[in-house]
C-alpha cells in the first residue's frame, strides 16, 4: 500500500545566491564533455581555459552575490550564504586557478588525462564551496565527501610514479577513516540534539539538551577527530608528510591551502556556531590539540630534507596556529582565523610554485639542494621563496606577521593567553627550518669555473641541475604564480587594510558570536 503524502512544499531556493555553485557544476560538466574531443588544441589549451573560465565566473558571481553583513539561506535549511562562506570561497577559487596554472606542464596531466584532471579539480572546489556554505550536518557531510573523493584520485593522478599511487592510496584509507569518524560523530550529535540544522542544534543546546549529555560529548569528540584528520591536526597528521610528498606537487599545493581552508570553514561553522554553547566542554580539548599540533609540526619540520615534506610539517604547525582562532570562540577569533587562511593561501602557493619550478629541472627533485645558489641563478624564483619563508615564519612587513599577530591577539583576548605564548614559541622553533631554506638559496657556494673553449670563459651558475630550462622564465606561468603570490604577501603585509575590511565583514557572519 502506498501512503499518500500531504503536499510537500518545494524548498525556497535563492538562485542568485546559488549561482556560483551552478556555474561550478555547469563548468565541470562542460569540461568533462570537452575532454572527449581529441586533438592537441582541446587537450592542451581549451580544457585549462575552460577550467580557468569556470573558476573565474564562479569568483565573479561570488563577488556579485556578496553584500556586506548579509546572512541568508540560499537553499532553505541546507545552504547559507554569508561573508564567511564567500570569503573562503575566494580562497578555493584562487587556489584552484593557481593549481591549473601550476599543473600546466605537469606529468600528471598527460598521465591521467587533462579532462579528468580538471574535472576532478573542479568537483573538489565545488565540494569546498558547498562545505563553506553548509547549514546542516547532511550538507556538511556531502560537501566533505565531494571535496575528498576527487582529491584521492588527484593524488594518484601521476599513475606512472609509484610514490603518487602510494600517496593516493594512503590518503584514501586515512581520509575514509576520518570521514567515518566524522560521520559517526555527526550521527551522535544529531541523536542528542534531534535536529541536523546548525541553527537548530544551537537552539537545542543548553535548552532541551543538557551540555553534559554523554551522547553529545561523544559526538563532538568524534566530529572533532574526523575534522582533525582533514585539517591535519596532530595527532591525526601522520598521513600529511607522505601524501604531500607523493602527490603531484600542484595537487599538494591545492591540498595544502584549499583543503585546510575548507576544513577550518567547517570547524568554524560547527564549533563556533552550532556548538558554541558547549564551548566549555570542547575548548580545552581543542586548545590541547592546537598545542600538540604546533609542537609536533615545528619539531617534525626541522630534520626534513625534502621541501615538500618540510612544507607538509610546516602546514601541520600552521594548522595549530589557526586552530587557536577557533578555540577562543569569539568574533575576533573568527576574524583572525579567516585572515590567516587568506594570507596562508598567498604564502603557501608562492612557496609551492617555486618548489614546482625547481623540481621539474633539478636533479635533486624537491630536495633542499635543488635551491642551492638559486638567489644568483634565478632571482625571480628566489625572491618569492624568500618572502614566502619569511612570511610563514611571521616576519614583520609580510602578511604572515599580521596574521600571526591577529591570532595571538585573539587568543589573549579570549582568555587563552598561554596559547598565544605557544604560538610565539612555535614560531621561534620554525625559524630553524624556514631560514635554512633562505640560507641555502642565498649563501650557497660561488660560481664555478668550467673547463671551456679557449677565448670564451664559461661560468656555470651553481644551481643543482642547472640547464637552460632552469631559467625562471622557461615556465612563465609558474614564475608568474610565485611572483604574484609573493607580491601580494608583501602588499598585504605593508597595507593590510583591504583584508581588515574584509574580515570585519566576515566577523559579523556567525550570528552566535555577535553581541
Amino acid at each position, binding site marked *: 500500500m502506498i501512503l499518500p503524502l500531504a503536499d510537500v512544499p*518545494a524548498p525556497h531556493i535563492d538562485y542568485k545566491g546559488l549561482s556560483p555553485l551552478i556555474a561550478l557544476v555547469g563548468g565541470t560538466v562542460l569540461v568533462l564533455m570537452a575532454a572527449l574531443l581529441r586533438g592537441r588544441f582541446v587537450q592542451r589549451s581549451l580544457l585549462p581555459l575552460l577550467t580557468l573560465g569556470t573558476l573565474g565566473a564562479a569568483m565573479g558571481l561570488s563577488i556579485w552575490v556578496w553584500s556586506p553583513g548579509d546572512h541568508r539561506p540560499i537553499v532553505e535549511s541546507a545552504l547559507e550564504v554569508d561573508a564567511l562562506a564567500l570569503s573562503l570561497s575566494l580562497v578555493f577559487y584562487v587556489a584552484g586557478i593557481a593549481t591549473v596554472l601550476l599543473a600546466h606542464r605537469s606529468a600528471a596531466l598527460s598521465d591521467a588525462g587533462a579532462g579528468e584532471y580538471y574535472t576532478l579539480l573542479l568537483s573538489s572546489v565545488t565540494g569546498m564551496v558547498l562545505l563553506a556554505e553548509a547549514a546542516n550536518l547532511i550538507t556538511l557531510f556531502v560537501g566533505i565527501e565531494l571535496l575528498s573523493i576527487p582529491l584521492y584520485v588527484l593524488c594518484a593522478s601521476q599513475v606512472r610514479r609509484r610514490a603518487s599511487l602510494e600517496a593516493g592510496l594512503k590518503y584514501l584509507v586515512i581520509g575514509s577513516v576520518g570521514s567515518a569518524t566524522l560521520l559517526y560523530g555527526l550521527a551522535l550529535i544529531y541523536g542528542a540534539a534531534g535536529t541536523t540544522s546548525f541553527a537548530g542544534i544551537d537552539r537545542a543546546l543548553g535548552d532541551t539538551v543538557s551540555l553534559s549529555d554523554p551522547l553529545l560529548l561523544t559526538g563532538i569528540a568524534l566530529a572533532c577527530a574526523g575534522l582533525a584528520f582533514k585539517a591535519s591536526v596532530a595527532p591525526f597528521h601522520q598521513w600529511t608528510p607522505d601524501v604531500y610528498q607523493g602527490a603531484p606537487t600542484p595537487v599538494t599545493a591545492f591540498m595544502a591551502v584549499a583543503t585546510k581552508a575548507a576544513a577550518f570553514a567547517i570547524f568554524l561553522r560547527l564549533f563556533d556556531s552550532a556548538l558554541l554553547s558547549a564551548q566549555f566542554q570542547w575548548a580545552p580539548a581543542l586548545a590541547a590539540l592546537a598545542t600538540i599540533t604546533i609542537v609536533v609540526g615545528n619539531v617534525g619540520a626541522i630534520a626534513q630534507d625534502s621541501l615538500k615534506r618540510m612544507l607538509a610539517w610546516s602546514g601541520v604547525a600552521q594548522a595549530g596556529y589557526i586552530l587557536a582562532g577557533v578555540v577562543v570562540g569569539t568574533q575576533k577569533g573568527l576574524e583572525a582565523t579567516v585572515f590567516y587562511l587568506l594570507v596562508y593561501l598567498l604564502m603557501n602557493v608562492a612557496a609551492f610554485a617555486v618548489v614546482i619550478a625547481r623540481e621539474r629541472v633539478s636533479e635533486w627533485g624537491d630536495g633542499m639542494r635543488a635551491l642551492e645558489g638559486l638567489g644568483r641563478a634565478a632571482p625571480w624564483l628566489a625572491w618569492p621563496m624568500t618572502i614566502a619563508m619569511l612570511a610563514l615564519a611571521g616576519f614583520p612587513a609580510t602578511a604572515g606577521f599580521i596574521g600571526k599577530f591577529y591570532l595571538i591577539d585573539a587568543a589573549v583576548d579570549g582568555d587563552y593567553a598561554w596559547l598565544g605564548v605557544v604560538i610565539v614559541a612555535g614560531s621561534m622553533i620554525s625559524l630553524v627550518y624556514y631560514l635554512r631554506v633562505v640560507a641555502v638559496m642565498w649563501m650557497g657556494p660561488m660560481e664555478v669555473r668550467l673547463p671551456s673553449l679557449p677565448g670564451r670563459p664559461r661560468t656555470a651558475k651553481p644551481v643543482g641541475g642547472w640547464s637552460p630550462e632552469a631559467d625562471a622564465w622557461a615556465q612563465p606561468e609558474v614564475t608568474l604564480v610565485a611572483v604574484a603570490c609573493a607580491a601580494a604577501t608583501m602588499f598585504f603585509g605593508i597595507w593590510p587594510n583591504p583584508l581588515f575590511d574584509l574580515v570585519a565583514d566576515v566577523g559579523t557572519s556567525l550570528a552566535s558570536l555577535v553581541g
Partner: protein
Amino acid sequence: MLQSYLPALVFLVLGGAIGGAFTLLNGVLGPRRPNPVKNEPYECGLPSEVKRSFRFGISFYLIAMLFILFDIEVIFLYPIAVQLKAFGVFALVETLVFIFLLLVAFVFVWRRGALEWK
C-alpha cells in the same frame, strides 16, 4: 525511556530464535551425502583453488563497478516516481537534472571506451 527499545530487543530475540531453529533443524533432519565438490567452499561459481598467479581481467571490475553505480543511482528515482504528485513540479525538474547529470556521466564512460570488453 529504555522501554522504547523493547521492540528492538524482541526483534533480536526473534531473529536469533528463528535463525537458530532453522540451523538446528537442518543439522538434525537434513540428509548428508558428501562428495568432494560439495565440500568445497562455494565462491561465485569460480574454482576455489586460486593460484597465486591468477588474475582477474580489469574489465570485469570496471563493468561491475559501473553497473553498481548506475544501478544505485536509478534506485533514487523510485521514491520520487512513487510520490511525484505530492512532491510536485519541483521534484520533477530536480529529477530531470539528476538524470541529465547521469546521462553526462554515461556519455563520458561510453565515449572513453570503458564499456568495451578488452
